[in-house]
């Protein structure tokens, strides 16, 4: 029995070692081979999907935010927190302003979690949810599409304008077409970078607010027409903007019409017909260093200004599809694992992990090295 037991344990160890080796090298037959084309672009694999069956309150996830050892996910039915391999849900009964959680950010100063919902803004601090709405605060509207923390300041993009909350003085500011060059009152995205706040204003392009000079400037589509982009690379590709992200001195702008990149001097536009962008319909984006991740309706795109890496799910065989595009050359690869759904709505990354919020579940990918 002892011998049998030893043999059995030995076999288990060998099998575990094989599995671990496969796991660490990307688990699939493909991902090792994709490095040459991807260049400096990180490549993710070993996708793991989480749905209601795994403890999420809903399959539809709007946003994801990584915060140290935990992952915060905004779903259509509450806030889900993944920690120690377990999901825990927070809903209206716990103090959430609305079950529909559209955006999440974490304050680096305090660790407070700010949650934008379909029915107001929450501050989750020390286990308690504090709710801000149009009735009890200076919020412009209760539908909070985007929230970010920038030092002591919290910025929101709402259905009725952008908002600013100074957590020290507890003062609110509202920015609409009445006091900012917005053209329209509604806003959908906000980000911070280089002592500036960038606001994606639906129909108003991008609004830049300089936090030092308190001056605004706007970036709009130079051709002024909704149905066309007249010239390539002449400015933001469309005035209807859905998201902004700033990193490495580059401003990235998402629209439902394509992607724009601004380095402070020059604009560059990207469409599905003239680049590796998989779809012009971009729900959200987030940049990290030189790389931007684009949540589109046809999958996740990573882009560093040169190389595109796109992750898709083949619904027929549930396998992953990876497209690597350099210039006009695209290499198509099949992966053993895939993102949870091609309609990607949110993304976040930390270390070697990336998380996606999608139309059907959230998923975690690991950087393949």
């Amino acid at each position, binding site marked *: 029995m002892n011998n049998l037991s030893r043999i059995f344990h030995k076999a288990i160890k060998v099998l575990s070692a094989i599995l671990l080796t496969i796991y660490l090298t990307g688990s699939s037959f493909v991902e090792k081979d994709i490095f040459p084309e991807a260049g400096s672009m990180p490549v993710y694999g070993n996708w793991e999907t989480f749905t209601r069956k795994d403890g999420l309150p809903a*399959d*539809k996830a*709007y946003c994801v935010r990584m915060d140290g050892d935990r992952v915060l996910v905004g779903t259509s039915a509450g806030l889900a927190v993944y920690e120690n391999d377990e999901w825990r849900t927070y809903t209206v009964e716990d103090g959430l302003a*609305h079950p*529909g959680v*559209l955006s999440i950010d974490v304050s680096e100063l305090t660790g407070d979690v700010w949650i934008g919902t*379909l*029915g107001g803004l929450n501050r989750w601090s020390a286990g308690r949810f504090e709710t801000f709405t*149009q009735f009890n605060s200076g919020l*412009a*509207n*209760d*539908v909070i*599409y985007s929230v970010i923390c920038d030092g002591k300041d919290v910025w929101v993009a*709402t*259905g*009725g*304008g952008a908002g600013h909350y100074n957590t020290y003085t507890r003062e609110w500011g509202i920015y609409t077409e009445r006091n900012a060059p917005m053209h*329209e*009152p*509604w806003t*959908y995205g906000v980000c911070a970078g280089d002592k500036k706040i960038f606001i994606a204003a*639906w*129909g108003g392009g991008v609004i830049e607010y300089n936090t030092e000079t308190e001056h605004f400037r706007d970036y709009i589509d130079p*051709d002024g*027409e*909704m*149905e*066309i*982009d*007249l*010239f*390539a690379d002449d400015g933001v*590709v*469309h005035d*209807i903007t859905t998201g902004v992200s700033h990193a490495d001195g580059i401003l990235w702008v998402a629209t*439902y*019409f*394509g992607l724009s990149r601004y380095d402070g001097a020059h604009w560059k*536009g990207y*469409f599905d*017909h003239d680049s590796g962008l998989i779809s*012009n*319909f971009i729900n959200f984006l987030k940049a990290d260093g030189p790389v931007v991740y684009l949540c589109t*309706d*046809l999958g996740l795109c990573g882009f560093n200004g040169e190389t595109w890496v796109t992750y898709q799910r083949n619904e027929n065989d549930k396998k992953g599809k990876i497209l690597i595009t350099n210039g006009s050359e695209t290499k198509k690869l099949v992966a053993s694992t895939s993102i949870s*759904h*091609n*309609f990607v709505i949110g993304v976040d990354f930390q270390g070697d992990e990336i998380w996606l919020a999608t*139309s*059907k579940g959230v998923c975690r990918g690991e950087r393949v090295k």
Partner: protein
Amino acid sequence: MKFTHYALVSTLVILFSVLELSGQEEKLNYGNTTDELVPYGRFQKAHKNFFDDNQLFTGAGREKVPPTDLTEVRIGLLGPLEGSILSPQGNQMLQGAILAMEEANKKGGYNGIPFRILPHNDVGLWGAAANEVVKMNDEKVWAFIGTIDDINTHVALRVALKLELPMVNTGDPDPTLTETRIPWMIRCIADDRQSSYALVNYVYRQKGHSRIAVLRANNRYGRVGIMEFRDAALRYGYPLVLEIRYNDGETSFTTQIERMIKSSPDAVVLWGNAKETALILNQMREMGMDQPVYGCDRLMSPVFLEIAGKEAEGVVTTCQYNPTLDIPNLIAFNRNYEKRFGLEPDVFAAHAYDGMNIIIDAIRIAGLNRALMRDVMTDMKTFQGYQGVTGEIIFDASWNDIGSIWMTEVRDGKFEFFPPPPLTSEVSMTIKQ
């Protein structure tokens, strides 16, 4: 024989080529835009045209199983129902939808389950439309109609996308509304682009005016509404001689009219609501302006006739449908509406009636699943060419109704309807590739 054969073939080739060329000249661009009116079309081919195709919805949801315990099928309606200068139109919109719902319920509702409209007022707190659409979603509506005001409709649309809630717009003619690529909304009312093209063609080409002054409402309706008129006039070679504004609720327009007089226009275009534009017309005449007056569809209202009185004679407007057509379903609608609500239906009632019927039909075809309802509403087949009481609905790639537009002229105190002259291009295009 051989020569005859070649001659015949050559002639046919030439003829077909000519026919083909003629066909290309007749073909309209996005939004029924003639070559002459294409933005920058004389000088530059656009790097990207955004509305050559439909935006697909690739998200999940089609697999959702319909509930089995429903006692009513809820449909939302977002409109200016109280506290707005647009409330009369908002209530007409609601009543048009109610009539469609009641008729559907008489026919058994949806599999024996009655339809019910949940009305929501879009006037209130700043950005109320966003909050109200969220409430509708919480009330578990399957789709909604809304609204009239441009800003509120845009706000509602963006929430509809997040909630994946089908939306049918029946009252906002803002051209930019469907130029958002959000695949959850269709619009079954012609927009201000169509109205502007008809009006520009009529004013400049048919009537031969060349100096047009515009007095418009100082709100988004006025700003965005006149945009296509201004651009089209410019592309015809006639920049506006003046464009000035007034605020809703103003009653004295002396300053604006003095400025118009100084600009020496040969005609005036008014773009705003019926009450203010009627007051403007009266004061123009009092101050000696006898130029022809043209206007947007909102002038086509009993309120305009009542306030303007005899001064309304000869005023020409656009209208998104012709309520006097001898079409059986329109006649029945007019009769039933008047019987049910005690007043004549207006343009908002008629289009809401069509919009609600489209939603009801979509539910009957697709079942109670929002994504599947969306699919049939946007498939460019099921409702393409839909014969509503407002006429034939033709959707373009942005799901905007580019069906026929009408014009009216006030004659003997009544709006007389007539089709607009066909749009033509008077210049040949040489587009830089």
